[in-house]
């Protein structure tokens, strides 16, 4: 019965979304406050109904109700509880339900926390948000309904074992929160176009939503990369797989949007561009959903393959993106342009940031879609792999990262490049030192690698130095520094942290890519091998049993310079349901790099086992960097200045006092 209640709630949510699409927009058009006021309770009702529906589905998974088709197809009564719950979104139908749940949550957040928005704008935003919900709810109910019932089955078919993993259990919710969070920026952009006006206030309202989406997207992508790193057993952390690109492109666009909205808020410039970026960022999210969900590509995420659904999502995309872009073409010329600035200024630097980010996003776009287009048009099957992306995306990142410390020190309107260079003297010295040290210790790898590493150091040191100069570290008495450090707005800390994080990630990426050691050896029990200073003794193999799998453990003792370091047990697992083998790498995490061991097949006739080893220097920096970036985003988000409504009363009071 709970299942049917959930199904009914879902249908009711669709009707509510329909009401929410029509009434507030009509109200905004005719300036009828009552019609506009329908938007808020409708958004809340929609969240409650979709939430009910989602929990009904989760209930079906938790109690293993195999009369529900998706539960039967994706779950198993013996599965650990965590994966029963995460199984809800481990498949197409459930993940789409999660998608609209998050969409409704963002809509309700605008309704509940948007008290300070102009009524017309809020009504239009809620209307557009509801239109997206209508499209996707229709899609779910008609083409991927998670509540379809079947004659009850005695046992489910289980969840793909490589998806039974804690990182992957939480990777989709974060990724979706990021994708869908950008819908708010989209709705704001469309609402602004409908109203025909935008201003600094608009940018300030959009920024926190975009920032929240960006934080989630950053974490989601990092989690996905981390999962691929240890679960797929290839020692790589990013494969330029189309599905990865599908999440990376919205991230690039969102990053650009964050920076351009800043210019718009402070200087009322780049209005048209910011609106366009907001539309593009969400369009790329939709495209990501389309790519993953339609089956036009097949990759790691090939567990949802159904072309009929693809056509449906494609129609939704064309409707939303096409509609928004047409509106943009029609209304954008009427938007008033704002403040002027010279090329050498904070605004100029942010424009450079935007140009580079969008162009690099474009190269990723081409690399991802070119094979599809070629296949569709000519029928030739090609693959565009990492070499393409390294050759296009990489070079574009170099000027971007180089400009980060400089740009964030330039002042608004008209900057003093010479002054900034003087202030970056120390940063430059640190970077040069890092470069020299790397060259001194490097005995192999591409000659460009130390420069890449130095670039990362440059960004990190630049972030620290900017902070240092703002608090006058070493230049003022300590209590003065402390006072300044406390007085610095949280958004400034956020910026510094995010830039520091990207520098860290850069260092990790360069180090891992350039100096990874790999070795594939055949080992018999009792033999040993060495890699990157570690010695591994292969003791043999032992069978073992997990909750829903059997495994063969390889037993290794690792030592370094004769001193024992750790015991590693990579394994080959055989899952019971569905019956499928997986490889579990064993990873020894150390500050300087990961030792990564994979147990391969047994060689016939007592030849031992194939063992693959990697040493990935500084690989942790990639994910720690991403985490630092996300923390920076959260810091900025907590800045009271971004919560426009909160300080208003206080602001009025103090203004009155000042008068």
């Amino acid at each position, binding site marked *: 019965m709970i299942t*049917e209640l959930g199904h009914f709630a879902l249908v009711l949510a669709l009707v509510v979304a329909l009401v929410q699409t029509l009434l507030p927009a009509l109200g905004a058009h005719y300036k009828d406050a*009552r019609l506009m006021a329908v938007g808020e309770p409708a958004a809340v009702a929609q969240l409650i109904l979709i939430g009910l529906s989602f929990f009904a589905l989760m209930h079906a998974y938790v*109690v293993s109700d195999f*009369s529900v088709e998706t539960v039967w197809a994706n779950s198993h009564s013996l599965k650990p509880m965590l994966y029963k719950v995460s199984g809800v979104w481990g498949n197409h139908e459930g993940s789409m339900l999660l998608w609209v749940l998050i969409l409704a949550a963002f809509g309700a957040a605008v309704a509940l926390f948007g008290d300070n928005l102009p009524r017309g704008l809020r009504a239009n935003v809620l209307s557009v948000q509801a239109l997206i919900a209508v499209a996707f709810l229709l899609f779910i109910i008609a083409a991927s309904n998670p509540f379809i019932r079947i004659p009850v089955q*005695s046992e489910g078919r289980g969840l793909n074992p490589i998806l039974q993993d804690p990182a992957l259990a939480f990777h989709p919710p974060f990724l979706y929160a990021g994708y869908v969070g950008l819908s708010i920026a989209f709705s704001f952009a469309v609402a602004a176009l409908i109203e025909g006006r935008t201003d600094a206030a608009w940018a300030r309202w959009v920024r926190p939503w975009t920032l929240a989406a960006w934080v989630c997207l950053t974490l989601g992508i990092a989690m996905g990369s981390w999962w691929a790193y240890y679960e797929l057993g290839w020692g790589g952390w990013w494969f330029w797989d189309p599905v990865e690109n599908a999440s990376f492109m919205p991230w690039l666009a969102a990053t650009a949007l964050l920076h351009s909205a800043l210019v718009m808020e402070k200087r009322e410039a780049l209005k048209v561009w910011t609106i366009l970026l907001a539309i593009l960022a969400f369009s790329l999210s939709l495209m990501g959903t389309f790519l993953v969900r339609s089956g036009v590509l097949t990759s790691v995420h090939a567990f949802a393959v159904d072309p009929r659904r693809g056509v449906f999502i494609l129609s939704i995309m064309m409707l939303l993106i096409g509609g928004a872009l047409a509106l943009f073409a029609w209304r954008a010329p009427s938007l008033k342009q704002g403040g002027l600035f010279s090329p050498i200024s904070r605004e100029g630097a942010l424009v450079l940031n935007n140009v580079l980010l969008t162009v690099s996003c474009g190269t990723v776009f081409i690399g991802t879609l070119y094979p599809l287009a070629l296949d569709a048009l000519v029928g030739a099957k090609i693959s565009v792999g990492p070499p393409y992306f390294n050759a296009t995306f990489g070079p574009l990142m170099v000027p971007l990262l180089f400009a980060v410390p400089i740009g964030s020190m330039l*002042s608004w309107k008209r900057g003093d490049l010479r002054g900034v260079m003087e202030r970056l003297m120390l940063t430059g010295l640190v970077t040069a030192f890092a470069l020299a040290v790397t060259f001194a210790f490097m005995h192999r790898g591409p000659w460009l690698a130390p420069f890449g590493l130095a670039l990362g150091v440059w960004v990190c040191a630049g972030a620290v130095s900017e902070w240092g100069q703002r608090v006058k570290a070493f230049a003022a008495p300590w209590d003065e520094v402390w006072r300044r450090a406390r007085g610095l707005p949280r958004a400034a800390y956020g910026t510094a942290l995010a830039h520091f994080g990207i520098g860290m990630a850069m260092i990790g990426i360069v180090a891992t890519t350039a100096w990874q050691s790999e070795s594939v050896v055949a080992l018999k029990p009792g033999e040993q091998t060495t890699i990157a200073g570690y010695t591994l003794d292969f003791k043999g193999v032992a069978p073992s049993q997990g909750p829903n799998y059997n495994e063969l453990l390889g037993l290794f003792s690792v030592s370094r310079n004769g001193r024992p370091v750790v015991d590693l047990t990579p394994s080959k697992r055989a899952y019971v349901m569905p019956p499928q083998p997986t490889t579990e790498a064993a990873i020894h995490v150390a500050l300087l790099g990961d030792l990564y061991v994979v147990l391969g097949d047994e060689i016939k006739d007592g030849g031992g086992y194939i063992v693959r080893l990697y040493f990935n220097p500084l690989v942790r920096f990639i994910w720690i960097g991403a985490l630092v970036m996300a923390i920076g985003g959260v810091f900025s988000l907590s800045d009271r*200045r971004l919560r426009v409504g909160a300080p208003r009363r206080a602001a009025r009071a103090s203004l009155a006092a000042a008068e």
Partner: protein
Amino acid sequence: MLLWLLFSVMTAATLALILRPLMRPSAPAGESAGDGTLAVYRDQLLEIEAEANRGVIDAREAEATKAEIARRLLAAADTREPPPASVTAPPALGRRMALGIAALTPIMTLALYLAYGAPGFPGQPHAEHMQEALQRDRMHTAQVNDLVAKVEMRLREAPDDGRGWEVIAPVYFKIGRYRDAADAFARAGRLLGESPARLAGFAEATVFAADGIVTEEARKAYERILELDSERIEPRFWLALAREQDGDLKGAKADFEKLLATAPADAPWRASVEERVSAITQRLEGKGPTADDIAASARLDPAQRKAMIEGMVDGLAQRLKANGNDLAGWVRLVRAYTVLQRGDEARAALADARKALATDDAAQQTLKQLATSLGLGS
């Protein structure tokens, strides 16, 4: 009924929530559309002041920025729109619209829901489903027992009703009353005349009653069947088994092998014969349980016998863990676990078997069939 009640409550609550603004005689006078904008600029001014106080930006820059923001603030204040008229449409229109939505919503929802939903479909949590299956089984047994009692009553009144005995014999067999089944088959044979089917029923029931030992009676019955119909297979199997149980392993093996030689390739009983052959082979090599062990097992009480069987199964599992290259052994183990209702272990054994015999495609096929036939999933 409850379901429909909940549907109605859900719909009504939703409508009440979203239509409330329409039902109000007039919306609260809204703030001006420009208020938020002004707040942002005021905020920015304060921020600049704070930064200038902290010395993050110098005074000249602060003044310039402040002037610019002030300009924008004034411009925004100028274009400040009047608050939207609280109600431009007459209240009646709002109410009519609300009524329309209130009427359309349930209709649309219901139409869509009925197109995809299954309101009559009960939820079936796994645990409950299993419970129900068990319940059904018990009810079935109760019904059968009832039926049996009725037939027995009639037979007590008319013990010469051969048809009655013949009807009840297989039922006895099914519900596990083997001794009664053997007796009923025997009576039916006496009253209605000897036939291979009746003899076979008697013999099989006798064997089952003796816990798998082919007794002298059963052996005679099987021999008689072969006299009547030499084409029949199962007597030859049981007779071979009898030899095996008598300790004549070589003879039994020869008989089984003869049986195999004449068996069609797709005979469903092939597997069990092959199983016997391999078991005997092992015993000949001195591995399996001896005749004495089996004889001992027949004399034990049920609890002890179960313990012994489990001991044997565990021994088999141990052996297979050491050397997994034994398809027949694996099949026996999985079967045994299933019979002992140790489903998880059966599944685990199946998985182990698959792994141990990963390179043997034929074995994989057999295991797959085994899994399907025992309902262990594919």
